[in-house]
Protein backbone atom coordinates (compact mmCIF):
# COMPACT_ATOMS: atom_id res chain seq x y z
CA UNK A 1 0.00 0.00 0.00
CA UNK A 2 2.72 2.44 0.99
CA UNK A 3 4.89 1.47 -1.95
CA UNK A 4 1.93 1.94 -4.22
CA UNK A 5 1.34 5.37 -2.75
CA UNK A 6 4.90 6.38 -3.43
CA UNK A 7 4.61 5.17 -6.98
CA UNK A 8 1.38 7.03 -7.55
CA UNK A 9 2.79 10.21 -6.10
CA UNK A 10 5.88 10.09 -8.22
CA UNK A 11 4.07 8.97 -11.35
CA UNK A 12 1.48 11.69 -10.86
CA UNK A 13 4.19 14.28 -10.79
CA UNK A 14 5.99 12.69 -13.73
CA UNK A 15 2.85 12.62 -15.81
CA UNK A 16 2.22 16.26 -15.15
CA UNK A 17 5.80 17.09 -15.97
CA UNK A 18 5.76 15.08 -19.17
CA UNK A 19 2.53 16.68 -20.33
CA UNK A 20 3.88 20.09 -19.51
CA UNK A 21 7.15 19.46 -21.26
CA UNK A 22 5.38 18.22 -24.34
CA UNK A 23 2.93 21.07 -24.42
CA UNK A 24 5.10 24.08 -23.97
CA UNK A 25 8.41 25.68 -24.55
CA UNK A 26 10.14 25.99 -21.20
CA UNK A 27 12.16 29.12 -21.60
CA UNK A 28 10.85 32.57 -22.21
CA UNK A 29 12.64 35.89 -22.41
CA UNK A 30 12.41 38.37 -19.55
CA UNK A 31 12.72 41.32 -21.89
CA UNK A 32 9.85 43.31 -23.29
CA UNK A 33 7.27 41.39 -25.21
CA UNK A 34 5.42 42.84 -28.15
CA UNK A 35 2.06 44.52 -27.69
CA UNK A 36 -1.02 42.41 -28.01
CA UNK A 37 -2.55 42.47 -31.46
CA UNK A 38 -5.60 44.60 -32.03
CA UNK A 39 -7.34 41.60 -33.52
CA UNK A 40 -8.72 38.56 -31.82
CA UNK A 41 -7.19 36.87 -28.83
CA UNK A 42 -8.38 34.03 -26.69
CA UNK A 43 -10.28 35.70 -23.88
CA UNK A 44 -9.54 33.81 -20.69
CA UNK A 45 -11.83 36.03 -18.62
CA UNK A 46 -14.12 34.29 -16.21
CA UNK A 47 -14.65 32.68 -12.83
CA UNK A 48 -12.86 29.38 -12.27
CA UNK A 49 -13.23 26.83 -9.49
CA UNK A 50 -10.06 24.95 -8.56
CA UNK A 51 -9.54 21.20 -8.91
CA UNK A 52 -7.23 19.74 -6.30
CA UNK A 53 -6.85 16.14 -7.44
CA UNK A 54 -3.31 16.85 -8.58
CA UNK A 55 -0.90 17.04 -5.62
CA UNK A 56 -3.87 17.18 -3.23
CA UNK A 57 -1.98 16.07 -0.10
CA UNK A 58 0.47 18.91 -0.50
CA UNK A 59 -2.02 21.52 -1.53
CA UNK A 60 -4.92 21.14 0.87
CA UNK A 61 -3.89 19.38 4.08
CA UNK A 62 -0.46 20.87 3.46
CA UNK A 63 2.94 19.28 3.03
CA UNK A 64 4.49 17.26 5.78
CA UNK A 65 7.68 18.41 7.46
CA UNK A 66 10.81 17.53 5.48
CA UNK A 67 8.89 16.11 2.50
CA UNK A 68 11.10 17.30 -0.33
CA UNK A 69 10.29 14.37 -2.62
CA UNK A 70 10.23 15.24 -6.30
CA UNK A 71 11.62 18.73 -5.88
CA UNK A 72 14.73 19.71 -7.89
CA UNK A 73 16.18 21.58 -4.95
CA UNK A 74 19.70 22.66 -4.12
CA UNK A 75 21.52 21.79 -0.91
CA UNK A 76 20.84 25.35 0.23
CA UNK A 77 17.09 24.80 -0.08
CA UNK A 78 17.33 21.51 1.81
CA UNK A 79 19.19 23.14 4.70
CA UNK A 80 16.65 25.97 4.72
CA UNK A 81 13.84 23.42 4.92
CA UNK A 82 15.52 21.51 7.72
CA UNK A 83 15.93 24.75 9.70
CA UNK A 84 12.37 25.87 9.12
CA UNK A 85 10.06 25.93 12.10
CA UNK A 86 6.35 26.37 11.40
CA UNK A 87 6.14 28.60 14.44
CA UNK A 88 7.68 31.38 12.37
CA UNK A 89 4.23 31.86 10.89
CA UNK A 90 2.97 32.99 14.29
CA UNK A 91 5.07 36.15 14.09
CA UNK A 92 2.77 39.08 13.28
CA UNK A 93 5.03 40.20 10.45
CA UNK A 94 4.61 36.80 8.78
CA UNK A 95 0.89 36.26 9.28
CA UNK A 96 -0.58 38.25 6.40
CA UNK A 97 1.81 37.29 3.65
CA UNK A 98 -0.20 36.20 0.60
CA UNK A 99 0.97 33.33 -1.53
CA UNK A 100 3.26 34.74 -4.23
CA UNK A 101 2.35 34.49 -7.90
CA UNK A 102 3.98 31.10 -8.34
CA UNK A 103 2.31 29.51 -5.31
CA UNK A 104 -1.10 31.20 -5.17
CA UNK A 105 -2.65 28.77 -7.69
CA UNK A 106 -1.58 25.89 -5.43
CA UNK A 107 -3.50 26.93 -2.34
CA UNK A 108 -7.24 27.51 -1.98
CA UNK A 109 -7.41 29.06 -5.40
CA UNK A 110 -10.80 30.13 -6.61
CA UNK A 111 -9.73 32.24 -9.55
CA UNK A 112 -11.11 35.23 -11.38
CA UNK A 113 -9.59 36.52 -14.62
CA UNK A 114 -10.68 39.74 -16.28
CA UNK A 115 -9.34 41.79 -19.12
CA UNK A 116 -8.56 45.48 -19.37
CA UNK A 117 -9.05 47.10 -22.76
CA UNK A 118 -8.07 50.52 -24.02
CA UNK A 119 -11.37 52.31 -24.49
CA UNK A 120 -10.47 54.07 -27.73
CA UNK A 121 -8.55 51.39 -29.58
CA UNK A 122 -10.04 48.32 -27.87
CA UNK A 123 -6.53 46.93 -27.68
CA UNK A 124 -5.80 44.53 -24.87
CA UNK A 125 -3.81 46.29 -22.17
CA UNK A 126 -3.75 43.65 -19.46
CA UNK A 127 -5.29 40.64 -17.83
CA UNK A 128 -5.94 40.79 -14.11
CA UNK A 129 -6.32 37.87 -11.76
CA UNK A 130 -7.75 37.51 -8.27
CA UNK A 131 -7.34 34.39 -6.13
CA UNK A 132 -9.36 33.56 -3.05
CA UNK A 133 -6.78 32.84 -0.30
CA UNK A 134 -5.45 36.18 0.97
CA UNK A 135 -6.96 37.76 -2.17
CA UNK A 136 -3.78 38.43 -4.14
CA UNK A 137 -4.34 40.32 -7.37
CA UNK A 138 -2.03 40.29 -10.35
CA UNK A 139 -1.68 42.35 -13.46
CA UNK A 140 -0.36 40.68 -16.58
CA UNK A 141 0.63 43.44 -18.93
CA UNK A 142 -0.17 42.69 -22.56
CA UNK A 143 0.82 46.06 -24.03
CA UNK A 144 4.49 45.38 -24.61
CA UNK A 145 5.87 47.40 -21.73
CA UNK A 146 9.32 46.38 -20.43
CA UNK A 147 10.06 44.87 -17.06
CA UNK A 148 11.28 47.35 -14.41
CA UNK A 149 14.96 47.90 -13.66
CA UNK A 150 16.68 45.64 -11.16
CA UNK A 151 16.63 48.25 -8.41
CA UNK A 152 12.81 48.54 -8.45
CA UNK A 153 10.82 47.01 -5.62
CA UNK A 154 9.85 43.36 -5.66
CA UNK A 155 6.28 42.33 -4.85
CA UNK A 156 4.47 39.14 -3.90
CA UNK A 157 2.95 38.93 -7.35
CA UNK A 158 6.00 40.24 -9.20
CA UNK A 159 5.89 42.06 -12.52
CA UNK A 160 4.25 40.08 -15.29
CA UNK A 161 4.10 40.50 -19.04
CA UNK A 162 2.21 38.23 -21.39
CA UNK A 163 1.90 37.26 -25.01
CA UNK A 164 -0.25 34.83 -26.92
CA UNK A 165 1.23 31.80 -28.62
CA UNK A 166 -1.82 30.71 -30.55
CA UNK A 167 -4.49 30.39 -27.90
CA UNK A 168 -1.96 29.86 -25.13
CA UNK A 169 -1.26 32.84 -22.90
CA UNK A 170 2.41 32.81 -21.96
CA UNK A 171 3.39 34.97 -19.00
CA UNK A 172 6.83 35.96 -17.78
CA UNK A 173 7.19 37.22 -14.22
CA UNK A 174 10.17 38.87 -12.54
CA UNK A 175 10.60 41.03 -9.41
CA UNK A 176 9.11 38.45 -7.06
CA UNK A 177 9.67 38.66 -3.34
CA UNK A 178 11.29 35.73 -1.58
CA UNK A 179 8.64 33.02 -1.60
CA UNK A 180 8.24 29.28 -1.22
CA UNK A 181 8.35 26.22 -3.44
CA UNK A 182 6.64 24.08 -0.81
CA UNK A 183 5.00 25.24 2.40
CA UNK A 184 7.43 23.40 4.63
CA UNK A 185 10.38 25.73 4.41
CA UNK A 186 11.58 25.06 0.88
CA UNK A 187 12.20 28.60 -0.36
CA UNK A 188 12.12 30.26 -3.74
CA UNK A 189 14.49 33.22 -3.96
CA UNK A 190 13.75 36.73 -5.12
CA UNK A 191 16.13 36.13 -8.03
CA UNK A 192 13.78 33.54 -9.54
CA UNK A 193 11.75 33.98 -12.70
CA UNK A 194 8.37 32.45 -13.39
CA UNK A 195 7.11 31.39 -16.81
CA UNK A 196 3.45 30.39 -17.13
CA UNK A 197 1.27 29.01 -19.88
CA UNK A 198 -2.52 29.31 -19.52
CA UNK A 199 -4.80 27.45 -21.91
CA UNK A 200 -8.35 26.17 -22.03
CA UNK A 201 -9.85 22.91 -23.24
CA UNK A 202 -13.57 23.51 -23.14
CA UNK A 203 -14.37 24.55 -19.60
CA UNK A 204 -11.06 23.36 -18.18
CA UNK A 205 -8.35 25.95 -17.63
CA UNK A 206 -4.85 24.55 -17.26
CA UNK A 207 -1.82 26.40 -15.99
CA UNK A 208 1.68 25.13 -16.61
CA UNK A 209 4.14 27.01 -14.42
CA UNK A 210 7.90 26.83 -14.65
CA UNK A 211 10.12 28.29 -11.95
CA UNK A 212 13.80 28.93 -12.52
CA UNK A 213 15.73 29.85 -9.41
CA UNK A 214 19.52 30.14 -9.41
CA UNK A 215 19.64 29.91 -5.62
CA UNK A 216 17.31 27.15 -4.52
CA UNK A 217 16.66 25.02 -7.63
CA UNK A 218 19.13 23.01 -9.69
CA UNK A 219 16.69 22.53 -12.58
CA UNK A 220 13.48 24.15 -13.79
CA UNK A 221 10.57 23.22 -11.54
CA UNK A 222 7.41 22.49 -13.52
CA UNK A 223 3.90 22.12 -12.13
CA UNK A 224 0.42 21.97 -13.63
CA UNK A 225 -2.78 23.22 -12.01
CA UNK A 226 -6.38 23.00 -13.21
CA UNK A 227 -9.64 24.85 -12.81
CA UNK A 228 -13.14 24.47 -14.25
CA UNK A 229 -15.18 27.45 -15.40
CA UNK A 230 -17.81 28.33 -12.81
CA UNK A 231 -19.87 31.40 -13.78
CA UNK A 232 -21.83 31.26 -10.50
CA UNK A 233 -18.72 31.51 -8.36
CA UNK A 234 -18.61 34.34 -5.84
CA UNK A 235 -15.24 34.83 -4.15
CA UNK A 236 -15.51 36.06 -0.59
CA UNK A 237 -13.32 38.87 0.71
CA UNK A 238 -10.16 37.87 2.56
CA UNK A 239 -9.01 40.56 4.98
CA UNK A 240 -6.07 39.74 7.24
CA UNK A 241 -5.36 41.25 10.64
CA UNK A 242 -1.96 40.45 12.15
CA UNK A 243 -2.12 39.75 15.88
CA UNK A 244 0.31 38.68 18.59
CA UNK A 245 -0.33 34.94 18.95
CA UNK A 246 2.59 34.18 21.26
CA UNK A 247 4.14 36.65 23.66
CA UNK A 248 7.84 36.56 22.85
CA UNK A 249 10.77 38.92 23.31
CA UNK A 250 11.18 41.12 20.25
CA UNK A 251 13.39 39.67 17.57
CA UNK A 252 12.87 35.98 18.26
CA UNK A 253 12.83 34.10 14.96
CA UNK A 254 11.74 30.48 15.42
CA UNK A 255 14.03 28.01 13.63
CA UNK A 256 15.81 24.72 14.21
CA UNK A 257 19.55 24.85 14.76
CA UNK A 258 21.48 22.44 12.51
CA UNK A 259 21.17 18.87 13.70
CA UNK A 260 18.31 19.56 16.11
CA UNK A 261 15.25 19.07 13.90
CA UNK A 262 13.95 15.72 15.10
CA UNK A 263 11.02 15.83 12.69
CA UNK A 264 13.11 15.27 9.56
CA UNK A 265 12.68 11.46 9.40
CA UNK A 266 8.99 11.60 10.33
CA UNK A 267 7.58 11.81 6.81
CA UNK A 268 9.62 8.91 5.48
CA UNK A 269 8.99 6.75 8.52
CA UNK A 270 5.26 7.41 8.50
CA UNK A 271 4.84 6.47 4.84
CA UNK A 272 7.59 3.86 4.50
CA UNK A 273 9.57 6.01 2.10
CA UNK A 274 13.36 5.77 2.12
CA UNK A 275 14.67 8.80 3.98
CA UNK A 276 17.16 9.53 1.21
CA UNK A 277 14.28 9.90 -1.23
CA UNK A 278 12.44 12.31 1.04
CA UNK A 279 15.43 14.64 0.84
CA UNK A 280 14.50 15.48 -2.75
CA UNK A 281 16.77 16.72 -5.50
CA UNK A 282 16.41 16.76 -9.27
CA UNK A 283 17.00 13.04 -9.50
CA UNK A 284 13.80 12.30 -7.59
CA UNK A 285 11.70 13.81 -10.38
CA UNK A 286 12.60 11.29 -13.02
CA UNK A 287 11.29 7.79 -13.90
CA UNK A 288 14.68 6.15 -13.40
CA UNK A 289 14.44 7.03 -9.76
CA UNK A 290 11.74 4.38 -9.39
CA UNK A 291 14.39 1.72 -9.90
CA UNK A 292 16.76 3.28 -7.43
CA UNK A 293 13.95 3.65 -4.93
CA UNK A 294 13.34 -0.07 -4.93
CA UNK A 295 16.87 -0.77 -3.81
CA UNK A 296 16.82 1.65 -0.92
CA UNK A 297 16.18 0.58 2.64
CA UNK A 298 12.80 1.62 3.97
CA UNK A 299 12.67 3.12 7.43
CA UNK A 300 11.16 1.09 10.22
CA UNK A 301 8.03 2.48 11.81
Amino acid sequence: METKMIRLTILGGLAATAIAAAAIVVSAPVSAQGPAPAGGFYDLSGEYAPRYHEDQPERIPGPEIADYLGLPISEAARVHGDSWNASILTLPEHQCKPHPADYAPRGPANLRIWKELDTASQRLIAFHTHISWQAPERTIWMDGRPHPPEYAAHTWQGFSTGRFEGDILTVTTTHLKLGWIRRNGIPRSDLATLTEHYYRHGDVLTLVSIINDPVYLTESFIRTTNWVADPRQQIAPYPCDAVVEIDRPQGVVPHHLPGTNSFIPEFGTKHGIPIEATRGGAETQYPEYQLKLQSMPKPQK
Partner: protein
Amino acid sequence: MRGFGLGVWFVLTVVGAVVATGVTPKARAQQNQAPAPADLRVMPVQGSVYMIVGAGGNIALQIGDEGVLLVDTGLAQNADKVVDAIRKLTDKPIRYIINTHVHADHTGGNEAIGTLGSRVAGGNVGAGAGVGAGIIAHENVLNRMSAPTGEQAAAPFSAWPTDTYFTKKKELHVNGEAIIIEHQPAAHTDGDSFVHFRKSDVVSAGDIFVTTTFPILDAQRAGGINGIVAALNRLIDITIPKEKQEAGTYVIPGHGRLCDEADVVEYRDMVTIVRDRIEDLVKKGRTLAQVKAARPTIDYDGRYGATTGFWTTEMFIDAVYNDLSKKK
Protein backbone atom coordinates in the same frame (compact mmCIF):
# COMPACT_ATOMS: atom_id res chain seq x y z
CA MET B 1 -2.59 49.50 -10.62
CA ARG B 2 -1.41 47.47 -7.74
CA GLY B 3 2.17 46.34 -7.76
CA PHE B 4 5.06 48.71 -7.83
CA GLY B 5 3.08 51.82 -7.09
CA LEU B 6 6.09 53.83 -8.10
CA GLY B 7 4.79 55.59 -11.13
CA VAL B 8 7.28 55.97 -13.89
CA TRP B 9 10.89 55.15 -13.21
CA PHE B 10 13.34 57.00 -15.31
CA VAL B 11 16.98 56.90 -15.96
CA LEU B 12 19.46 59.72 -15.92
CA THR B 13 22.28 58.54 -18.07
CA VAL B 14 25.39 59.83 -16.45
CA VAL B 15 28.50 57.97 -15.59
CA GLY B 16 28.42 56.83 -12.02
CA ALA B 17 30.32 54.38 -9.93
CA VAL B 18 30.01 51.02 -8.32
CA VAL B 19 29.66 50.34 -4.65
CA ALA B 20 32.56 50.76 -2.31
CA THR B 21 32.27 50.71 1.43
CA GLY B 22 35.11 51.55 3.75
CA VAL B 23 35.10 48.74 6.26
CA THR B 24 38.43 46.99 6.52
CA PRO B 25 41.90 48.07 5.39
CA LYS B 26 41.45 45.87 2.36
CA ALA B 27 38.10 47.42 1.66
CA ARG B 28 39.46 50.91 2.08
CA ALA B 29 42.22 50.14 -0.38
CA GLN B 30 39.61 49.04 -2.87
CA GLN B 31 37.63 52.14 -2.15
CA ASN B 32 40.49 54.25 -3.41
CA GLN B 33 40.59 52.43 -6.70
CA ALA B 34 38.81 53.96 -9.63
CA PRO B 35 35.29 52.57 -9.65
CA ALA B 36 33.98 50.85 -12.73
CA PRO B 37 31.69 53.00 -14.86
CA ALA B 38 28.00 52.53 -14.31
CA ASP B 39 24.80 54.43 -14.90
CA LEU B 40 23.41 56.68 -12.24
CA ARG B 41 19.65 56.32 -11.98
CA VAL B 42 16.87 58.18 -10.24
CA MET B 43 13.59 56.57 -9.25
CA PRO B 44 10.58 58.17 -7.59
CA VAL B 45 9.83 56.25 -4.41
CA GLN B 46 6.80 57.76 -2.72
CA GLY B 47 5.58 61.19 -1.69
CA SER B 48 8.38 63.68 -2.15
CA VAL B 49 11.22 61.14 -1.92
CA TYR B 50 13.38 59.79 -4.73
CA MET B 51 16.14 57.20 -4.74
CA ILE B 52 19.43 57.74 -6.58
CA VAL B 53 21.24 54.52 -7.46
CA GLY B 54 24.78 54.11 -8.73
CA ALA B 55 26.69 56.92 -7.03
CA GLY B 56 28.15 54.63 -4.37
CA GLY B 57 25.67 53.93 -1.59
CA ASN B 58 22.05 54.62 -2.39
CA ILE B 59 20.99 58.25 -1.93
CA ALA B 60 17.54 59.40 -0.79
CA LEU B 61 16.42 62.73 -2.18
CA GLN B 62 13.55 64.81 -0.82
CA ILE B 63 12.34 67.76 -2.87
CA GLY B 64 9.87 70.43 -1.76
CA ASP B 65 9.16 74.12 -1.60
CA GLU B 66 12.00 74.77 0.82
CA GLY B 67 14.56 73.05 -1.31
CA VAL B 68 16.46 69.78 -1.50
CA LEU B 69 17.36 67.41 1.30
CA LEU B 70 19.72 64.52 0.63
CA VAL B 71 20.34 61.43 2.71
CA ASP B 72 23.95 60.53 1.91
CA THR B 73 26.00 61.79 -0.99
CA GLY B 74 27.71 58.83 -2.65
CA LEU B 75 31.37 58.64 -3.58
CA ALA B 76 33.30 61.87 -3.98
CA GLN B 77 34.10 61.23 -7.63
CA ASN B 78 30.39 60.99 -8.45
CA ALA B 79 29.33 64.23 -6.79
CA ASP B 80 29.00 66.11 -10.08
CA LYS B 81 26.74 63.45 -11.45
CA VAL B 82 24.58 63.53 -8.34
CA VAL B 83 24.22 67.28 -8.71
CA ASP B 84 23.34 66.84 -12.39
CA ALA B 85 20.69 64.34 -11.40
CA ILE B 86 19.21 66.71 -8.83
CA ARG B 87 19.22 69.60 -11.28
CA LYS B 88 17.19 67.57 -13.76
CA LEU B 89 14.48 67.38 -11.10
CA THR B 90 14.62 70.82 -9.47
CA ASP B 91 16.51 74.08 -9.37
CA LYS B 92 15.76 74.57 -5.66
CA PRO B 93 18.75 75.03 -3.34
CA ILE B 94 20.25 72.09 -1.50
CA ARG B 95 19.40 72.81 2.14
CA TYR B 96 20.38 69.70 4.06
CA ILE B 97 22.50 66.58 3.85
CA ILE B 98 21.93 63.82 6.38
CA ASN B 99 24.58 61.10 6.65
CA THR B 100 23.42 57.63 7.68
CA HIS B 101 27.01 56.73 8.66
CA VAL B 102 30.62 57.67 8.04
CA HIS B 103 31.74 55.50 5.11
CA ALA B 104 33.04 57.25 2.04
CA ASP B 105 30.51 55.72 -0.32
CA HIS B 106 27.86 57.58 1.70
CA THR B 107 29.71 60.76 2.69
CA GLY B 108 32.14 61.19 -0.20
CA GLY B 109 30.03 63.82 -1.90
CA ASN B 110 29.51 65.89 1.25
CA GLU B 111 32.17 68.44 0.39
CA ALA B 112 31.36 69.02 -3.28
CA ILE B 113 27.59 68.86 -2.93
CA GLY B 114 27.43 70.57 0.45
CA THR B 115 29.38 73.62 -0.67
CA LEU B 116 26.90 74.15 -3.51
CA GLY B 117 24.07 74.27 -1.02
CA SER B 118 22.68 76.89 1.26
CA ARG B 119 21.09 76.34 4.62
CA VAL B 120 18.70 79.08 5.70
CA ALA B 121 20.60 81.09 8.31
CA GLY B 122 19.46 83.36 11.11
CA GLY B 123 17.76 82.92 14.44
CA ASN B 124 19.75 80.56 16.57
CA VAL B 125 21.44 78.96 13.56
CA GLY B 126 25.06 79.98 13.91
CA ALA B 127 27.17 82.41 11.89
CA GLY B 128 28.18 81.06 8.54
CA ALA B 129 25.32 78.60 8.48
CA GLY B 130 24.01 80.16 5.30
CA VAL B 131 27.12 79.06 3.45
CA GLY B 132 26.73 75.52 2.28
CA ALA B 133 24.12 72.95 3.12
CA GLY B 134 23.67 71.86 6.69
CA ILE B 135 25.21 68.41 7.18
CA ILE B 136 23.50 66.38 9.89
CA ALA B 137 24.76 63.14 11.41
CA HIS B 138 25.24 61.30 14.68
CA GLU B 139 28.20 62.75 16.54
CA ASN B 140 30.23 59.58 16.04
CA VAL B 141 30.23 60.35 12.32
CA LEU B 142 31.88 63.69 13.07
CA ASN B 143 34.29 62.00 15.46
CA ARG B 144 35.32 59.55 12.75
CA MET B 145 35.70 62.17 10.03
CA SER B 146 37.54 64.77 12.10
CA ALA B 147 40.66 64.64 14.29
CA PRO B 148 42.09 66.46 17.29
CA THR B 149 44.00 69.63 16.55
CA GLY B 150 47.33 68.87 14.96
CA GLU B 151 46.33 65.45 13.68
CA GLN B 152 45.29 64.47 10.17
CA ALA B 153 41.53 64.21 9.79
CA ALA B 154 39.97 61.39 7.77
CA ALA B 155 37.95 63.85 5.70
CA PRO B 156 38.30 67.53 4.74
CA PHE B 157 36.73 70.07 7.07
CA SER B 158 34.04 71.07 4.60
CA ALA B 159 32.82 67.49 4.43
CA TRP B 160 32.25 67.23 8.17
CA PRO B 161 28.80 67.27 9.71
CA THR B 162 27.83 70.76 10.81
CA ASP B 163 25.02 69.62 13.05
CA THR B 164 25.34 66.48 15.14
CA TYR B 165 23.21 64.72 17.73
CA PHE B 166 24.21 62.38 20.52
CA THR B 167 20.77 61.46 21.84
CA LYS B 168 18.50 58.71 20.62
CA LYS B 169 17.05 60.84 17.85
CA LYS B 170 16.88 64.20 16.16
CA GLU B 171 13.80 65.72 14.58
CA LEU B 172 13.41 68.06 11.63
CA HIS B 173 10.48 69.46 9.68
CA VAL B 174 11.48 70.18 6.10
CA ASN B 175 9.45 70.58 2.93
CA GLY B 176 6.22 70.10 4.80
CA GLU B 177 7.04 66.81 6.43
CA ALA B 178 8.40 65.54 9.70
CA ILE B 179 11.75 63.79 9.47
CA ILE B 180 13.03 61.59 12.28
CA ILE B 181 16.74 60.80 12.42
CA GLU B 182 17.18 57.88 14.78
CA HIS B 183 20.51 56.52 16.04
CA GLN B 184 21.07 52.75 15.90
CA PRO B 185 23.97 51.98 18.22
CA ALA B 186 26.81 49.57 17.44
CA ALA B 187 25.24 48.17 14.26
CA HIS B 188 27.03 48.65 10.91
CA THR B 189 29.20 51.26 12.68
CA ASP B 190 28.84 53.27 15.89
CA GLY B 191 27.28 56.21 14.08
CA ASP B 192 24.36 54.75 12.14
CA SER B 193 21.09 56.61 11.68
CA PHE B 194 17.77 55.71 10.12
CA VAL B 195 16.10 58.65 8.41
CA HIS B 196 12.31 58.41 8.40
CA PHE B 197 10.32 60.69 6.11
CA ARG B 198 7.08 60.45 8.02
CA LYS B 199 4.65 61.98 5.52
CA SER B 200 6.16 60.34 2.47
CA ASP B 201 6.41 57.13 4.54
CA VAL B 202 9.92 56.24 3.42
CA VAL B 203 12.89 55.20 5.54
CA SER B 204 16.49 55.54 4.42
CA ALA B 205 18.25 52.73 6.28
CA GLY B 206 21.90 53.19 5.38
CA ASP B 207 24.09 50.11 5.38
CA ILE B 208 22.34 48.45 8.31
CA PHE B 209 20.07 47.03 5.64
CA VAL B 210 21.35 46.06 2.20
CA THR B 211 19.96 43.63 -0.37
CA THR B 212 23.26 42.76 -1.98
CA THR B 213 25.41 41.10 0.70
CA PHE B 214 25.42 39.66 4.17
CA PRO B 215 25.40 42.53 6.67
CA ILE B 216 28.66 44.39 6.93
CA LEU B 217 30.11 44.73 10.41
CA ASP B 218 32.70 47.45 10.64
CA ALA B 219 34.35 46.18 13.79
CA GLN B 220 36.99 48.93 13.62
CA ARG B 221 34.19 51.44 14.05
CA ALA B 222 32.40 49.48 16.77
CA GLY B 223 29.88 47.73 14.55
CA GLY B 224 28.41 44.49 15.85
CA ILE B 225 26.04 41.70 14.84
CA ASN B 226 23.65 42.16 17.75
CA GLY B 227 23.44 45.86 16.99
CA ILE B 228 22.50 45.03 13.41
CA VAL B 229 19.83 42.57 14.54
CA ALA B 230 18.44 45.13 17.00
CA ALA B 231 18.41 47.81 14.33
CA LEU B 232 16.64 45.55 11.83
CA ASN B 233 14.00 44.82 14.46
CA ARG B 234 13.65 48.54 15.05
CA LEU B 235 13.21 49.05 11.31
CA ILE B 236 10.40 46.49 11.37
CA ASP B 237 8.84 48.50 14.19
CA ILE B 238 8.99 51.70 12.15
CA THR B 239 7.64 50.28 8.92
CA ILE B 240 3.94 49.59 8.48
CA PRO B 241 2.84 47.61 5.45
CA LYS B 242 -0.44 47.97 3.65
CA GLU B 243 -2.69 44.97 3.70
CA LYS B 244 -1.14 41.69 2.58
CA GLN B 245 2.23 42.65 4.03
CA GLU B 246 3.26 44.79 1.09
CA ALA B 247 4.12 48.40 0.22
CA GLY B 248 3.05 50.98 2.85
CA THR B 249 6.36 52.18 4.23
CA TYR B 250 9.14 51.88 1.67
CA VAL B 251 12.74 51.32 2.72
CA ILE B 252 15.75 52.57 0.79
CA PRO B 253 18.61 50.19 1.62
CA GLY B 254 22.23 51.29 1.75
CA HIS B 255 22.85 49.19 -1.35
CA GLY B 256 20.50 47.30 -3.60
CA ARG B 257 16.88 47.55 -4.61
CA LEU B 258 13.96 49.41 -3.12
CA CYS B 259 12.24 47.42 -0.35
CA ASP B 260 9.31 47.32 2.02
CA GLU B 261 8.80 45.73 5.43
CA ALA B 262 8.44 42.20 4.10
CA ASP B 263 11.91 42.43 2.58
CA VAL B 264 13.34 43.71 5.85
CA VAL B 265 11.64 40.86 7.70
CA GLU B 266 13.23 38.24 5.45
CA TYR B 267 16.64 39.86 5.85
CA ARG B 268 16.17 40.12 9.63
CA ASP B 269 15.19 36.45 9.73
CA MET B 270 18.31 35.49 7.79
CA VAL B 271 20.66 37.57 9.93
CA THR B 272 19.07 36.30 13.16
CA ILE B 273 19.24 32.65 12.10
CA VAL B 274 22.89 32.91 11.05
CA ARG B 275 23.72 34.81 14.25
CA ASP B 276 21.98 32.13 16.32
CA ARG B 277 23.86 29.33 14.56
CA ILE B 278 27.26 30.94 15.07
CA GLU B 279 26.42 31.90 18.64
CA ASP B 280 25.47 28.28 19.39
CA LEU B 281 28.81 27.08 18.04
CA VAL B 282 30.71 29.74 19.98
CA LYS B 283 28.96 28.64 23.17
CA LYS B 284 30.03 25.08 22.43
CA GLY B 285 33.62 26.25 22.24
CA ARG B 286 34.11 25.72 18.53
CA THR B 287 37.08 27.39 16.83
CA LEU B 288 36.65 29.78 13.94
CA ALA B 289 37.84 27.06 11.56
CA GLN B 290 35.24 24.68 12.96
CA VAL B 291 32.54 27.29 12.61
CA LYS B 292 33.47 27.88 8.98
CA ALA B 293 33.50 24.14 8.34
CA ALA B 294 29.95 23.95 9.72
CA ARG B 295 28.85 26.33 6.93
CA PRO B 296 26.42 28.38 9.01
CA THR B 297 25.41 30.52 6.02
CA ILE B 298 24.95 27.74 3.46
CA ASP B 299 21.26 28.32 2.80
CA TYR B 300 21.85 32.01 2.12
CA ASP B 301 25.20 31.92 0.31
CA GLY B 302 23.59 31.79 -3.12
CA ARG B 303 21.71 34.99 -2.38
CA TYR B 304 24.02 37.08 -0.22
CA GLY B 305 27.38 35.33 -0.27
CA ALA B 306 30.55 36.08 -2.18
CA THR B 307 33.94 34.45 -2.53
CA THR B 308 35.59 37.58 -3.94
CA GLY B 309 35.09 41.30 -3.56
CA PHE B 310 35.07 43.66 -0.64
CA TRP B 311 32.82 41.67 1.67
CA THR B 312 33.02 37.91 1.30
CA THR B 313 31.06 35.26 3.15
CA GLU B 314 34.24 34.31 4.95
CA MET B 315 34.78 37.88 6.13
CA PHE B 316 31.21 37.97 7.39
CA ILE B 317 31.61 34.76 9.37
CA ASP B 318 34.96 36.01 10.73
CA ALA B 319 33.34 39.23 11.89
CA VAL B 320 30.35 37.58 13.53
CA TYR B 321 32.50 34.94 15.21
CA ASN B 322 34.94 37.51 16.55
CA ASP B 323 32.12 39.73 17.74
CA LEU B 324 30.30 36.93 19.55
CA SER B 325 33.54 35.56 21.01
CA LYS B 326 34.40 38.82 22.74
CA LYS B 327 34.49 38.76 26.50
CA LYS B 328 31.40 40.62 27.60
